[in-house]
């Protein structure tokens, strides 16, 4: 479905201003002046979209309604019906989640002598990692430095990050790139072997390492292969639905469910690495998402129930540029690399309204503002968006640059008869990343003994706004750290009696707060996209779920 005539009319205005815009650069908003546009237009500041949590370690903190429902949710299990003395797996380290962070943690934990099991909701590697396009930041160029990477990262987040986590992030970064290359990742390179690095939003030096726009695919398929080559045990379609503890207050395993047969299996593990990823499929405030099918915040729910605090859960990242047309790919990520290489954002008149390399929160707010002010382009189905001028890249850098750098995106738009090398793309912000998450320290440990965290499910690294290229870096840095620390930790731990008392206490707390009968069951596991969604209300009131009767969301 090519653009309809009235949209083509606006595209002609984009084409008419292109030559003038070749040299036009709008100034970036100074960091101290970002708040007015954020407060008026960024979804994080919309009061009605948030509420205070009524129970648990973050009681009183604000978070999007969709996440609050799940954090205050009912357990899927009845502890009285589960026999904890019959475990199905007995391992040193259980890694929950098999995206980039989970795979990295598993590989390093095994290397450090641990017996590892991975449990994941979908297939090995079905995670947000596989869809990342733009790349991974690492300051390895001679004119760059980890200190500049640090400055960019904290400035992008308006100085809300945990400094020690950022220090770990930037100092481990070059080694993470080399580590991945040792497994055979094909980074884009210049003829002399130096990395081809793109400057993304908020970076003062280009430092984003990429593999065309299939970066996540390339890295994930290599790590997945390495996990298989090393014969690390894994369970697919077997998400964790509750953590198990021992009677000394340590995390000691998890209850897994077979998504197809509803059968439960129990894992006893001396340590658990939580690497369950993000939240996009909760569609906070109704936004479309770039996230994969299983991104439903399960790890946050499980960690919360064992008393682990969360940080910065009042902020979500809305990626400024997600496809707004055609409808079939609504919310598809349009990587920041398009802007990094020169794609400008334009309104219906073909005019720029913001510097395309503003940090993501600011740029998302600017796009929403432009559309609210009637300067967006409305699609035949009522979506609204602004133009991202991809053809300008070929004018700037020579014909073929777009095709060479964005094979995935060119193919995706071509499937709908849109040639992004010749025509701009219509974009609008979409739910992309959970900035915050499980509280943890630079070595990967959380405040709860035996529980470690890595990747998108943890928080503090990115503060209240993440820079592009830092989320995937987070996977390799903290995945490896969590794996290493967990492997060390299990050498000294001797578990005592397993218990699910924390689930009993949780249900009691919910009941006392009057929430048990008005909140859904969680973790959610999968979104309800089938036309007759599962009826939460009918289920949890009449029949408390029992082992063997576990239903999927």
């Amino acid at each position: 479905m090519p653009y309809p005539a009235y949209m083509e009319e606006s595209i002609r205005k984009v084409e008419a201003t292109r030559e003038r815009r070749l040299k036009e650069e709008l100034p970036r908003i100074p960091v101290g002046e970002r708040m007015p546009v954020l407060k008026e237009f960024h979804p994080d500041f919309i009061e009605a979209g948030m509420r205070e949590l009524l129970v648990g370690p973050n009681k009183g903190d604000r978070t999007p309604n969709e996440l609050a429902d799940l954090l205050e949710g009912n357990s899927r299990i009845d502890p009285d019906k589960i026999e904890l003395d019959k475990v199905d797996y007995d391992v040193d380290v259980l890694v929950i989640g098999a995206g980039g962070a989970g795979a990295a943690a598993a590989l390093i934990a095994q290397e450090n002598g641990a017996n590892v099991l991975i449990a994941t909701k979908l297939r090995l590697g079905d995670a947000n990692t596989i869809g990342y396009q733009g790349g991974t930041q690492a300051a390895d160029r001679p004119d760059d430095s980890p200190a500049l990477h640090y400055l960019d990262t904290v400035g992008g987040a308006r100085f809300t990050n945990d400094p020690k986590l950022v220090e770990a992030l930037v100092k481990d970064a070059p080694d993470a790139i080399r580590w991945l290359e040792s497994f055979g990742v094909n980074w884009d390179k210049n003829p002399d072997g130096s990395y081809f690095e793109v400057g993304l939003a908020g970076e003062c030096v280009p430092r984003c390492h990429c593999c065309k726009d299939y970066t996540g695919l390339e890295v994930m398929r290599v790590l997945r292969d390495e996990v298989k080559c090393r014969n690390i045990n894994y369970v697919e379609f077997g998400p964790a639905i509750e953590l198990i503890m021992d009677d000394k207050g340590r995390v000691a395993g998890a209850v897994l469910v077979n998504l197809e047969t509803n059968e439960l299996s129990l894992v006893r593990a001396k340590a658990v690495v939580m690497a369950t990823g993000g939240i996009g499929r909760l569609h906070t405030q109704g936004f479309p998402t770039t996230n994969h099918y299983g991104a439903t915040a399960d790890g946050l729910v499980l960690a919360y129930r064992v008393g682990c605090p969360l940080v910065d859960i009042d902020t979500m990242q809305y990626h400024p540029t997600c496809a707004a047309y055609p409808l079939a790919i609504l919310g598809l990520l349009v990587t920041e690399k398009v802007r990094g290489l020169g794609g400008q954002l334009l309104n219906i008149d073909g005019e720029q309204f913001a510097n395309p390399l503003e940090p993501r929160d600011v740029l998302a707010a600017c796009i929403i503002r432009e559309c609210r002010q009637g300067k967006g382009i409305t699609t035949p189905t009522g979506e609204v968006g602004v133009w991202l001028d991809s053809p300008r890249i070929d004018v700037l850098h020579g014909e073929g640059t777009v095709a060479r750098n964005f094979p995935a995106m060119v193919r995706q738009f071509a499937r709908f008869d849109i040639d992004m090398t010749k025509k701009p793309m219509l974009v609008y912000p979409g739910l992309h990343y959970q900035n915050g998450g499980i509280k943890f320290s630079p070595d990967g440990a959380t405040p709860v003994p035996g529980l470690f965290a890595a990747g998108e499910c943890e928080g503090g690294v990115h503060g209240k706004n993440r820079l592009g290229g830092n989320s995937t870096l987070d996977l390799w840095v903290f995945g490896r750290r969590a794996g290493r620390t967990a492997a060390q930790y299990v050498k000294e731990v001797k578990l005592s009696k397993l218990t699910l008392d924390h689930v009993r206490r949780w249900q009691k707390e919910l009941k006392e707060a009057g929430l048990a009968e008005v909140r859904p069951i969680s973790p959610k596991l999968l979104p309800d996209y089938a036309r007759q969604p599962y009826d939460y209300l009918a289920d949890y009131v009449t029949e408390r779920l029992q082992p063997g009767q576990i239903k999927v969301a």
Partner: protein
Amino acid sequence: MAQETKVAEKVRMLDIYIMGKRYQVSEGLTIMTALEYCGYRLIRGCGCRAAFCGACGTVYNFKNDPTLRYALACQKLVEQDMYLTQIPFFPAAKPSYDLDKMEPTGEQILKIYPELVTCFGCNNCTKSCPQDLEVLWFMSDALRGDIKEVAIKSFDCLMCGLCAARCPQGLVPYNISLLCRRLYGRYIAPKSKHVDERIAEIEAGKFDAEIEEMEKLSLEELRRRFDERKIIKD
């Protein structure tokens, strides 16, 4: 009432057949969203929903045309009289190997995947690729030991598995090409000197003082430094 009619006219309904049963769905849905619209709750065969993960490789044909076609369910729009079925991703031959102990040669590939020589060039793999890759070409490159060519031609592979499903010889092109790409990235691609130098500098603590200083700066001073930092474009 008049308005309702108008809306109804706008959305064209299509007949599709899911595992033989007829459903009506609106035009513009993908195979994946059409399945969901018809009430199917997907567990397998659904992943990133954006053409990166390869979980939803699928086949389809038409009521009056039995020729099999191939697509990603998350990308392919439904068409009138489409016959759909879901093929969950199924396991394929995947030997274990240790990349550290390998050499980037054709012999090495044949050692791990000896069945490669049984390819007789039927080209079913190429025809079934939803990414339109030249699968047979890179399979013959692999046979000749041209690892670089395999890496280039196979780079956009999503590992959806359709090529292996259609191979009459039981070959797994997506795993063979993965091995080639790993060998290329590890052994053949030119190495970066900068990264080794930078890692050595970090290990020697070269940036520690500067970063620790920033950790202790007042918000005001840190903000000033951020706004005044020099921006290098390329």
